[in-house]
């Protein structure tokens, strides 16, 4: 029972990371209609920027804030220069290849600038683990989980209670109508990419103390984040959150309890979920029907 509870708690902490990355993926998917394969590497790069500033003696909070702003503009720039020119004419194949290219550039660019060695990264919240009944959780993990819920709440406010959020929803619902009405559809696309990038960096900063900062540090989680986004329904932010926690928990439980799965083979569970969702219920748990052409 203790083991079981501990697995759930661990699942929640890793699920929070998947949920946040899935959230970034969903923001971009809602805006541009495809998945940004470079999302995890963008987050890692943003985290490296924080690390570099911190090494140079900038206080952590200032470094994080600055990097969040830079990430926002980096994501926005990528949308404007690489993605926008292609979205109207090009196929999925083209866009996927471009984001894979960007992923390689960022991965190796980080390796070039900061080398491939593992870096220690400061925790936001140190101290002893917190006991939750028989299970334990690190303070940093609690911060990660809380941040995901705060992010979800902030996005909810953005989408439901701001003018620009309303335009973002309208542009996703019916891009042509939104254009016809003179709504700033281009701007909201760019904002979505910027937000996705900033969210990525924030999560990168929060998980870096646990996974250790290195180029490609989030690559092992990429498949789980994709799974979370697909399971939740590719255009649903709340789906991304729920999907992230479901994937995190089931991955942990499968690794411990399903015979023959084990730590290495857990990723196959993700592959199975992706295939099952896409083949049998492509809108996922919360997505709109027909959200992804299958």
């Amino acid at each position, binding site marked *: 029972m203790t083991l079981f509870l501990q697995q759930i708690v661990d699942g929640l902490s890793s699920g929070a990371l998947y949920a946040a990355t899935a959230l970034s993926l969903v923001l971009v998917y809602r805006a541009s209609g495809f998945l940004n394969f470079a999302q995890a590497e963008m987050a890692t790069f943003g985290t490296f920027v924080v690390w570099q500033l911190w090494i140079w003696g900038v206080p952590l909070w200032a470094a994080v804030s600055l990097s969040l702003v830079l990430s926002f503009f980096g994501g926005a720039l990528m949308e404007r220069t690489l993605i926008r020119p292609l979205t109207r004419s090009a196929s999925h194949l083209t866009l*996927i290849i471009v984001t894979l*290219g960007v992923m390689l550039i960022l991965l190796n660019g980080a390796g070039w600038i900061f080398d491939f060695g593992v870096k220690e990264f400061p925790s936001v919240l140190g101290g002893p683990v917190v006991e939750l009944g028989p299970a334990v959780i690190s303070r940093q993990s609690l911060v990660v989980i809380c941040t995901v819920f705060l992010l979800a709440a902030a996005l909810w406010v953005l989408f439901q209670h701001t003018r620009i959020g309303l335009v973002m929803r309208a542009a996703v619902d019916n891009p042509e109508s939104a254009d016809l009405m003179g709504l700033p559809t281009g701007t909201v696309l760019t904002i979505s990419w910027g937000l996705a990038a900033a969210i990525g960096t924030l999560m990168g900063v929060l998980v870096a103390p646990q996974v250790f900062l290195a180029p490609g540090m989030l690559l092992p989680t990429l498949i789980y984040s994709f799974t979370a986004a*697909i399971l939740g329904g590719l255009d649903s932010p709340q789906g991304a959150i729920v999907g992230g926690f479901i994937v995190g928990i089931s991955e942990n439980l499968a690794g411990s309890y399903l015979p023959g799965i084990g730590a290495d083979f857990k990723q196959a569970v993700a592959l199975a979920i992706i295939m099952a969702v896409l083949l049998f219920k492509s809108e996922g748990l919360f997505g709109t029907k027909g959200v992804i052409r299958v």
Partner: protein
Amino acid sequence: MSMLAALHRHRPRLAVSRWSSWLLVIVVLGYLLYTPLVSVPFANTQKSLIFSYALVGLGLNLLTGLTGQISLGHGAFFALGAYLCAVLVGNEGWFYLSAVPVAGVVGFALGYLFGRPALRLQGLALALVTLALALVTPSVIKRLDGITQGREGIILDIAEPPSFVSLDQDQWIYYVNLLILVAGFVVCERLSRGHIGRSMIGVRDNENVAMTLGIRPATVKTRVFAFSAAMAAIGGVTYAYAIQFVGPEAFGLDLAIAFITVIVVGGLTSNAGAVLGAVFIVYMPSWTQEINQSAAGIGYGVALVLCMLVLPAGLIGLVRIVGHPLVRRVPFLGPNR
């Protein structure tokens, strides 16, 4: 902008006279046959590796370029071939060339089994599923450690040259891989022309129209997927010959992206392009490693982005841009003798 439009313009394959294309074949083959005799072992191994990647590229070109179905997961079939070779030849002592047909058959069968459900998906969904396959591959290899020796991998010493030739092992393997590649190239060239090629292009361009012409898209897609998986598996066998080692970490995301780079940089829809792409991904790191160990990865990335934005026809597109005026102007090079 007009220059960009010129680069984007579709160009057909070069129409050259029969004798000049034979001349080209003879010159290229002559170079390929001669060069291992005067090169250091490392250079030969590099070229053997190019031949492996080119085999995968040829299969992917049929799948992605002609049939329009993306796969990021062919690293899995490549790994399958490499491990089949390592286990059957290295551990069980089978004759090394027997791994080629075995990998072909097993690759085709598993490709069919995976492609059957997966190809009901298209575009992004298919890309995701195949990407997941690529990401899962190393962990599957580690999980099956009873057969694959897990993380340690399998060190090989296979494909000895027969006693009647006085070649070193690296030279012999070069010729073996070259022979397999030439055979694969001829087969793919045959498949991409004629009736089969037209039905693949029909499926890519418009499935509904293809259906009215009596083509069954699902069947065509699954068969092409299975065939390309077989090509990847055979490529994996030649990889095992060339490297003489298999280990799980070689078959992850990096490899999946390398394969995409092969066909994108080489030029989608061209068999020769697939070979050029393989040359690019093997030589790129050796050109750039003096700058920085990361430069190769950045180079791949930049090449992918640039190809999509500026040069969708890849290297073969460049060849055609240069080649077309040449073919038109130089006497005897053109198509009418």
